[in-house]
């Protein structure tokens, strides 16, 4: 287990370095950073001086090493647009995005898995068919459209829920949370639903097809032949065997939710990283863009690491292969 984690960590570092390289080259590709930082009437000497001070005359590998070093220390540079350290900007926005993402993912899992199980166990019931039809709509409607429709219905027509923002937030020092106030919860409902809807349908359909697959296997037939209760067969035997693919997809999707919360955040004016990123693109705010890239990659890497560990918890066959591999 520990050997596995170490190996995965090394792989993760390689991935992160690659992403950092891409993020680093962003600075070069979008033109001369000095030209973007100074005004039109800055003299050539001043420009050269700035270039020297920023270390832009150093060899590229040295610059990359410095970039990586700074990034590791949490020094992401200064935003061109806002003029504040990117690290602080991201730290402000991070809780909003993470909260939204986790609430959405939790919603997708807690609703999607039971729906998937239900539709797999009772494929003939009308409720299953209704679920499947709804899921088809959920999977084919674009996220922003769902968001706008929700705003129209609950925000404008019914006036039940706020249409933008996070509501009242509580500052815990290291983290600002909207989950401790009523207005915070009211505010997160619609964005989280919007963001989680697609994942929900995906998870439901995945659980359903995996479960149907497992229910056809010999060991389920044998479990039935032993007279186990339907409950034991479905939940003790079948569900556990559907979990591995569900964990994979959920892990990947969670990364996706965080990274692509952009659209939902824009629709609901959610003060998260996605909104920050979108504004950064409009203003070619390279430090923000590259830091966002690195941060999202970090999330993906961490989630994948957790997924890998979960595999080993769920499936004993993987644990053994590891032992055999270590023995050789």
């Amino acid at each position, binding site marked *: 287990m520990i050997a596995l984690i170490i190996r995965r960590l090394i792989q993760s570092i390689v991935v992160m370095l690659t992403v950092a390289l891409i993020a680093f080259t962003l600075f070069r590709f979008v033109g001369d950073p000095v030209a973007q930082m100074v005004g039109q009437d800055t003299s050539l000497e001043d420009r050269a001086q700035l270039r020297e001070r920023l270390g832009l005359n150093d060899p590229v590998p040295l610059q990359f090493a410095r970039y990586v070093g700074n990034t590791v220390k949490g020094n992401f540079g200064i935003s061109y647009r806002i003029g504040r350290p990117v690290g602080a900007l991201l730290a402000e926005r991070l809780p909003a995005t993470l909260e939204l993402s986790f609430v959405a993912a939790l919603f997708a899992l807690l609703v999607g898995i039971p729906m998937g199980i239900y539709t797999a166990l009772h494929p003939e019931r009308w409720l299953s068919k209704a679920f499947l039809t709804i899921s088809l709509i959920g999977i084919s409607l674009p996220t922003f459209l769902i968001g706008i429709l929700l705003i129209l219905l609950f925000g404008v027509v019914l006036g039940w829920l706020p249409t933008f923002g996070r509501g009242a937030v509580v500052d815990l020092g290291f983290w600002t949370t909207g989950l401790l106030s009523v207005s915070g919860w009211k505010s997160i409902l619609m964005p989280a639903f919007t963001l989680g809807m697609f994942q929900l349908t995906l998870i439901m359909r995945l659980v359903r097809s995996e479960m149907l697959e497992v229910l056809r*296997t*010999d*060991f389920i*037939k*044998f*479990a*039935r*032949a*032993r*007279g*186990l*209760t*339907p409950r*034991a067969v479905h939940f*003790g*035997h079948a569900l*556990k*065997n559907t979990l591995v693919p569900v964990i994979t997809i959920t892990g990947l999707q969670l990364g996706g939710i965080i990274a692509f919360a952009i659209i939902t955040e824009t629709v609901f004016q959610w003060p998260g990283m996605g909104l920050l990123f979108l504004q950064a693109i409009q203003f070619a705010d390279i430090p923000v863009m590259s830091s966002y890239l690195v941060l999202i990659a970090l999330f993906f890497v961490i989630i994948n690491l957790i997924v890998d560990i979960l595999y080993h918890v*769920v*499936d*004993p*066959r993987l644990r*053994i292969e590891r032992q055999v591999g270590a023995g050789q």
Partner: protein
Amino acid sequence: MTVEFPTRKGTLIAVDDVSFDLQPGEILGVVGESGAGKSMTGYAIIGLLDRPGRIAGGRIELDGERIDNLPPEKMRRFRGRRIGAIFQDPLTSLNPLLRISDQIIETIRTHMDMDERQARARTLELLNEVGIPAAAERMDEYPHQFSGGMRQRIVIALALAANPQLIIADEPTTALDVSIQAQIIRLLKRLCKDHDTAIMLITHDMGVIAEAADRVAVMYAGRIVELGPVRDVIKDAKHPYTKGLMDSIPAIGQDVRVLAQIKGAMPRLNAIPPGCSFNPRCPQAMDRCRVERPELITQGASAVACWLFAEEEAGVGVA
């Protein structure tokens, strides 16, 4: 008993009016080609026919109690408790994610009034009985840590978990190599005797039947064509199909260039010919075989469904 599958293109009859009985401690072999309805018969008995299959006629009794029309929940209690099952492939019969002990304990506790500790003790007993070496250390391992033969022993232990009266063994040795096959057969025979359990041994392997069974039922296209003591059926097959089967088994020490085989193939379920279903392939077919379907006719200790044996019967005055 009759099992049928209603399909869009009409109803397929997979098991057609099959009838037999089993005594405690007896092993009945059921032999036939793929698709002859052997497994279907077994699944019908434990009430696990795949939909849309259903029992269309006849009855199944266990200990004088009719069980084919029980409500699902009652039938579930019967499965495992009164009727056990062993399936063909031990590699896929066990849940790969659960420990052996958990699977057996779960089965025991479903059917017997035992606490965890008692069930665990019984699990160990069962594993010892089916011949798992070092069962105490290995019972908490996962299925993939056992070989195929060992896994089939575990499957047998699971089938025995609640001490059933009848075990349906569907091709229990087919997926195993020959030396392991012999061990499993010996194990089944011993358990059958020790527990006074009846075993319905479904196989297409005449060798397994000869080795293990007391009586044998030969099935063809959903019907029993011959039913009798193993010795009689093997040494003195009566039905032309059984004869064909026996001839197609090569004997050791006999220099055979070409194996005898039965011409043609078993008819598909939607194209069973009128009369005796074997008539198109039968070397001794008569006109009557093409029109009228033969019922089982008693011949000594056996019964044969073939018109070749009809005269004597008619002489006794039974239609």
